[in-house]
């Protein structure tokens, strides 16, 4: 039973998990934005139009690497219907956001095919496209590099002559494409390998994949002559977008109001800034609203794919299955600028294991590819694929069940993690035990069929967050959150507010407000929204409960300490117990005009205590020896959610992450020719999983409460993409007796491996 007294609880110290019987949390109500989305009324990035708006289009480099000698826009500007043209000359240098500036509009060089070099706003799309053709750009073509291992070589073409490797002591004095080196671990891996009875060492490669959101980036901007701007668009983080855009365009932050539209998928890829400052600059120069939307070709060529990787892993264990040492060296390229998540890759590689001797090195590399962006647990799926593949081989080598092998080495409460901190509370063992007991682990397999298991980890994040709750005069409640809803989080916010206040779910409505209506909120990323915004909602609701008790005390003329809140009602307590009929939230709200006016609650904080997240996946596949085609027969996701607020949307996160992982494992890949150009910039040739590729995706929600959240919530969005690459590789290995060390495991690659194995016999 939730109850609190008239004093508003201090947020400090009450972040701790407290067991309770939930009434609304854990149920599966319909989402508040649902009807708009099934009827076509919901407005996404490209669905907004302003009167008199122009159409903006971007001219992009056809070359992967070239000096930008000159840009002549005079003929384009003279074309009737063209209202503004922008180039690098329209944007001032910006130290704080230098890489973003160079990416949204190339400066001295173009660094990848698709790099923006100019943009036009015109009265129609046809005129804008015609104008792009009239812009004369002189390029001085430079040699390029798109492969991570090639880019690290001493004689590779250098992208940035001021890039000196971070994390190497002393810092190199010659420029290279190696942006940074990092290292994590503890113990003595050499001594650990000495103790091993068996050691397996392998190299792995994974291709770059795209987040593949169905909605291309889009925005509409307007700027007045006195520099007030409005921006509408699809983004995972409108506050960050506002800050960066205002800075690049040279506006005061307070003068730019950004509204996050409904967002058609992001998965990390819309934590970015691409079109928006360009759109604002075109609007500013033309004096008219401007709308821009990327084509799918532009999405592939100029928005963030994830890193491709090249990795070495070496793990040793004893005959009875104890890992004695683990070593990984991962090299990630993240496109033309710093930011490849090699650090996260190195940190996550061995996070599932309690190891005495572990070392992981990460290399962050730049290449002539689009600026990489976050993609669901950025950096983790690749390194975990490599480690979990070798773990699987070790278990097979000593003839041990792969789940038993993992249980024997699994990280548990109190263990020092492979990346440094001590684990406080984690549900890895619970997911492994659930996997072992799942009926899908027992189903007999037929010929050419195999079973694979893998576990995975993601940190989860908290971050800067604030939220406001307003009690309406009819007793309903409006929630303002600052984190765009990417997968049903408004429903979860309403559930948490209803739970605290003791009112029905349908009396609460959550809105993602614009940037002028709330303080700064970090982006929707790091699986942080249900955790961080949810906790802000809970504490804002508790503040409201304190105020409702005060108002009831006034109405009864008793001390506030003698009022308690239970099941949505103020109740006289202590000496006054039974003296008055309880007052509902609606009754107190209705009387608020006479007791001090409107009632609202607010909470602002930098959320910490995001609980770590672990999952284990089980997958059965069948490999066709004639074609190399891999069919997914059964798939089971088991993950610790801490506490599932809306279990259906938790399952949805598990299923969506798993299927993105299936695409990564089997089909998806950025394919570059020797000319440094992307060869498959469309959904026909870059093949996302479709409905007919897949079976139903079973889910098991494990709930090991996060001690850092009042309801025990852990983020659930990202971990689901971490295990599938390895789980499928292990399953394929079991089915075809092949160890696939390169992703994707597309039919030609598998067929080649089958033929090589046959030739070796």
């Amino acid at each position, binding site marked *: 039973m939730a109850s609190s007294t008239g004093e508003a609880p201090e947020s400090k110290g009450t972040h701790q998990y407290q067991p309770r019987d939930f009434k609304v949390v854990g149920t599966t109500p*319909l989402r508040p934005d*649902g009807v708009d989305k099934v009827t076509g009324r*919901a407005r996404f990035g490209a669905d907004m139009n302003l009167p008199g708006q122009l159409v903006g289009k971007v001219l992009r480099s056809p070359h992967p690497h070239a000096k930008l000698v000159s840009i002549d826009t005079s003929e384009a500007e003279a074309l009737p219907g063209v209202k503004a043209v922008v180039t690098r000359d329209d944007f001032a240098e910006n130290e704080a956001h230098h890489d973003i500036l160079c990416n949204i509009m190339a400066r001295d060089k173009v660094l990848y095919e698709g790099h923006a070099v100019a943009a036009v706003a015109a009265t129609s799309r046809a005129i804008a496209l015609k104008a792009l053709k009239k812009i004369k750009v002189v390029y001085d073509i430079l040699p390029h590099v798109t492969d991570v291992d090639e880019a690290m070589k001493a004689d590779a073409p250098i992208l940035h002559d001021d890039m000196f490797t971070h994390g190497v002591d002393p810092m190199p004095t010659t420029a290279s494409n190696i942006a940074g080196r990092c290292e994590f671990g503890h113990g003595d891996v050499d001594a650990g390998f000495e103790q091993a009875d068996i050691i397996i060492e392998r190299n792995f490669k994974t291709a770059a994949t795209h987040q593949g959101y*169905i909605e291309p980036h889009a925005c509409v901007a307007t700027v007045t002559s006195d520099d007030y701007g409005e921006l509408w668009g699809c983004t995972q983080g409108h506050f960050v977008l506002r800050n960066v855009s205002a800075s690049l365009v040279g506006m005061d932050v307070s003068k730019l109001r950004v509204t996050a539209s409904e967002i058609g998928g992001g998965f990390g890829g819309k934590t970015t800034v691409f079109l928006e400052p360009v759109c604002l600059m075109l609007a500013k120069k033309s004096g008219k609203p401007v709308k821009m939307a990327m084509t799918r070709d532009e999405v592939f060529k100029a928005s963030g794919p994830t890193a491709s990787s090249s990795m070495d892993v070496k793990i040793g264990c004893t005959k009875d299955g104890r890992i004695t040492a683990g070593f990984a060296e991962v090299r990630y390229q993240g496109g033309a600028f710093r930011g490849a998540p090699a650090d996260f890759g190195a940190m996550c590689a061995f996070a599932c294991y309690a190891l005495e001797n572990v070392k992981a090195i990460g290399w962050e590399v730049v290449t002539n590819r689009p600026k990489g962006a976050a993609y669901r647990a950025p950096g983790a799926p690749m390194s975990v694929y490599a480690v979990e593949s070798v773990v699987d081989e070790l278990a097979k080598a000593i003839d041990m069940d792969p789940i038993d092998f993992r249980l024997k080495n699994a990280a548990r409460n109190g263990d020092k993690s492979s990346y440094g901190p001590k684990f406080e509370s984690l549900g890895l063992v619970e997911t492994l035990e659930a996997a072992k007991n799942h009926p899908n682990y027992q189903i007999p397999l037929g010929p050419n069929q195999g079973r694979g298991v893998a576990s995975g980890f993601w940190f989860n994040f908290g971050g800067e967050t604030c939220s406001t709750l307003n009690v309406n005069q009819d007793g309903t409640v409006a929630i303002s959150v600052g984190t765009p809803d990417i997968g*049903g989080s408004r429903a979860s916010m309403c559930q948490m507010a209803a739970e605290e206040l003791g009112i029905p779910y349908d009396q609460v409505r959550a809105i993602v407000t614009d940037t002028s209506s709330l303080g700064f909120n970090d982006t929707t990323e790091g699986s942080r929204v249900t955790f961080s915004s949810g906790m802000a909602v809970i504490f804002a609701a508790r503040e409201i409960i304190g105020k409702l008790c005060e108002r009831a005390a006034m109405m009864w003329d008793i001390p506030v300490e003698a009022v308690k809140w239970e099941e949505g009602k103020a109740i006289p307590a202590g000496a006054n117990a039974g003296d008055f009929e309880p007052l509902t939230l609606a009754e107190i709200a209705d009387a608020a005009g006479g007791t001090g006016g409107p009632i609202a609650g607010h909470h602002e904080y930098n959320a910490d205590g995001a609980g770590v997240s672990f999952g284990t996946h089980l997958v059965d596949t069948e490999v066709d020896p004639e074609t190399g085609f891999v069919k997914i027969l059964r798939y089971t996701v088991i993950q610790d959610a801490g506490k599932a607020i809306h279990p259906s949307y938790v399952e949805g996160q598990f299923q969506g992450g798993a*299927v993105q992982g299936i695409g990564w494992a089997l089909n998806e890949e950025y394919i570059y020719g020797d000319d440094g150009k992307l060869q498959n910039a469309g959904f026909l040739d870059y093949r996302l999983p479709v409905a007919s590729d897949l079976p139903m995706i079973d889910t098991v929600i494990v709930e090991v409460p996060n001690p850092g959240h009042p309801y025990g919530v852990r983020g659930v969005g990202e971990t689901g993409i971490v295990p599938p690459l390895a789980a499928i590789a292990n399953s394929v290995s079991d089915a075809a007796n092949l160890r696939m060390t390169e992703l994707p495991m597309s039919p030609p690659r598998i067929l080649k491996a089958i033929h090589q194995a046959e030739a070796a016999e």
Partner: protein
Amino acid sequence: MGIHVSTKINGDDVEFVCDAEETLLDVLRDRLNLTGAKEGCATGDCGACSVTIDGRLTCSCLTLGAEVEGREIGTVEGVAKGNELHPIQQKILDNAALQCGVCTPGIVVAAKALLEKKPDPSEEEIRYWMAGNLCRCTGYDKIIRAIQDAAAEMRG
């Protein structure tokens, strides 16, 4: 020169003028303000722009606006009858068969077209019919279940 087109959309007579190169999707979205159909690719690969033309499921990005003279077009905006949702819409909500929702209009139009053609499709038939509608969020599981539920309800 603009081309004058007379057509029927969701049962209502509609006239518009479009350029020769404009797709039906451009016309729906930019001229008629029917933004339910989405442009995910403009190459017929994602299905987010699904509509029916004379009852046949098609990608509106692969049809020119000028081609629909005298035809009958069905869009997501015409699927609900006033405030009464179609069973496929209700079952998508009930099954939480959407996350971001940008593919949902196309899913609704495509699934409705399937069930009108085949009231009792197998799971495999649903999966192959829906293979032209990409969803990146859900992994399709809940979408398939929603279509199965809607089919069962419509069969009565």
